[in-house]
């Protein structure tokens, strides 16, 4: 019997240094979706833009990289140390490591400085027939081309016998130096150095491809491409899923979901938005073109085949049949700052409408408070999600009042992701990910804990008071300036 070579490989996963609070949530959603076992060689730390992990195969690395938008790239790690000297020392010793597996050095503070990779790892990649190049990347410190070449030359002891090729070589080797994350405090020597073979890039390019700047149809609350992709990942969207956004707007979340293979529905209370007839969002554009629609966007990105429909509908009175189950619900409800939070209704009593103006009637609306929206949304998700599937939604809050216990909750939904995006000094929004854990849905009354009822009010009053303060301060300065001038002119006169 031939036993397969079961050595797990060690990888360096390098992340973009932004949306740090989302890294863990995005990656965990992806690895659990793909069902990939990951062993951490070193405990991840948000301050460092990298993870060091062990994975069963290269295929796993490629799969993860095909999804993550926060991941920059993955390197098969051959050597890692805290000094350049140690790194080279390890690599040289690795060339004699014929045990067929990693020789692990002793750990200090959870990190080992002297791990030796098996020599096959190096030799199999450096055959004379394979073209190669070496990339140098330095994080938080700039080096000239010449300095980088000098760094590369230090690896001359490696048996690199193939021809060098800078464009699309068979093998790309990578040398990375990490100088911390504080540009105001860059050390002389790097904190951490890495060497290995490049395996795959993450989905950073998709941010440009899906950029709102080049998208046909956008609204003034369209979601940034990167965040929309993170949401689709956290919703664990996969090929053939049925996904709903009940506050769909211009459909930016559906674009991301469809990219990963979902068939998508959207609904929104705004008739003009769904018909692409709201005032153009782009500066300088007078009228919307014919193709400006959610469907047009999906056509633009080649996913029109997965466009199901959009429906004009008030979420507080939705129209989905009982028993229908979605694979994911991804949404950005209105916060009442850039768009009103409304539902159909009227405060007058015994109001009636005559039959004949029904078709074109634009109904009047009443306030749809945030606590109602989220309570409706969680109840809806508890009923309309497939078991084990997810609701991913944004939730606005005033930062200093944040308490995790006060986030919207529901007995059928488990909060599995909670990442903050800071919007201003005062306000933030959190991306909440809930997983449906039971099918036994009680009907929940309005969640009294949804302590957000007046986010809009708070947001504006706090913004207002600082504006007023600024005004007062300015007025004070002007007064002082005038007083000084007057005093000066008085002395002049004497």
């Amino acid at each position, binding site marked *: 019997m031939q036993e397969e070579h079961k050595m797990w490989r060690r990888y360096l996963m390098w992340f973009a240094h932004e949306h740090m609070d989302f890294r863990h949530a995005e990656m965990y959603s992806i690895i659990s979706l793909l069902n990939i076992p990951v062993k951490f060689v070193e405990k991840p730390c948000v301050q460092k833009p990298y993870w060091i992990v062990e994975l069963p195969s290269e295929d796993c690395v490629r799969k993860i990289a095909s999804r993550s938008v926060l991941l920059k790239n993955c390197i098969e790690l051959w050597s890692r140390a805290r000094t350049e000297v140690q790194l080279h020392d390890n690599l040289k010793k690795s060339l004699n490591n014929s045990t067929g597996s990693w020789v692990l050095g002793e750990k200090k503070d959870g990190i080992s400085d002297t791990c030796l990779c098996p020599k096959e790892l190096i030799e199999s990649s450096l055959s004379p027939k394979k073209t190669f190049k070496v990339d140098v990347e330095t994080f938080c410190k700039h080096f000239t081309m010449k300095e980088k070449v000098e760094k590369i030359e230090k690896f001359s002891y490696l048996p690199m016998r193939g021809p060098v090729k800078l464009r699309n070589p068979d093998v790309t080797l990578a040398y990375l130096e990490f100088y911390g994350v504080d540009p105001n405090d860059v050390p002389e020597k790097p904190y951490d150095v890495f060497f290995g073979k490049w395996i795959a890039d993450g989905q950073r390019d998709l941010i440009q491809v899906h950029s709102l700047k080049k998208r046909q149809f956008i609204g003034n609350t369209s979601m940034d491409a990167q965040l929309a992709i993170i949401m689709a990942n956290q919703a664990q969207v996969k090929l053939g899923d049925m996904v709903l956004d009940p506050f769909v707007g211009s459909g930016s979340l559906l674009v991301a979901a469809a990219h990963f293979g979902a068939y998508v529905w959207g609904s929104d209370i705004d008739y003009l938005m769904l018909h692409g007839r709201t005032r153009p969002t782009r500066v300088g554009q007078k009228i919307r073109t014919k193709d400006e629609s959610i469907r047009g966007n999906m056509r633009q990105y080649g996913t029109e085949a997965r466009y199901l*429909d959009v429906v004009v509908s008030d979420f507080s009175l939705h129209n989905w049949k009982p028993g229908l189950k979605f694979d994911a619900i991804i949404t950005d409800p209105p916060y009442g700052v850039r768009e009103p939070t409304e539902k159909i209704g009227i405060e007058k009593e015994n109001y009636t409408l005559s039959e004949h103006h029904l078709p074109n009637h634009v109904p009047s609306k009443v306030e749809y408070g945030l606590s109602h929206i989220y309570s409706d949304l969680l109840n809806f998700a508890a009923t309309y999600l497939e078991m084990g599937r997810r609701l991913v939604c944004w939730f606005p809050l005033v930062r200093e009042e944040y308490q995790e216990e006060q986030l919207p909750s529901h007995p059928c939904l488990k909060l599995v992701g909670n990442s903050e995006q800071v919007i201003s000094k005062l306000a933030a929004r959190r991306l909440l990910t809930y997983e449906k854990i039971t099918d036994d849905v009680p009907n929940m009354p309005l969640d009294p804990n949804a302590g957000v009822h007046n986010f809009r009010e708070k947001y504006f009053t706090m913004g207002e008071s600082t504006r007023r303060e600024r005004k007062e301060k300015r007025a004070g300065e002007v007064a002082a300036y005038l007083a000084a001038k007057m005093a000066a002119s008085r002395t002049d006169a004497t």
Partner: protein
Amino acid sequence: MKLITHNMLTSKCLKGVMTGYPLAINATDIKVTEVDFNPEFITRVIPKLDWEVLWAAANSIGHGEGLPKTLEPKFEENEDLLKKVHKVLLEVEVEEGNLTCPESGRQFPISKGIPNMLLTEAEVQ
């Protein structure tokens, strides 16, 4: 509006309406566009459908041809059938027309392919 959407929509948001399902379709403009066939998706969707409603809806707008009235148990092995279901669910679209609530007779307009299920403020009082 595609028939897959019709199969999932109700008018139960109306006061006094119990199920509001299925909505009757009155189509004045229908368009058929080609959509990539994905048998896995169709296989996954079929159990979520009310088959009789799909059958009746397709026939009511003149696109029921070849669709069996009852679903055979091993539908996933019948590629011909999956293709027909694909066509009826995803390729046939009602561009203009109405949906009518089976209980109250209330009509919901479909324009440019988008159904408008909004009620008036009088109806939600």
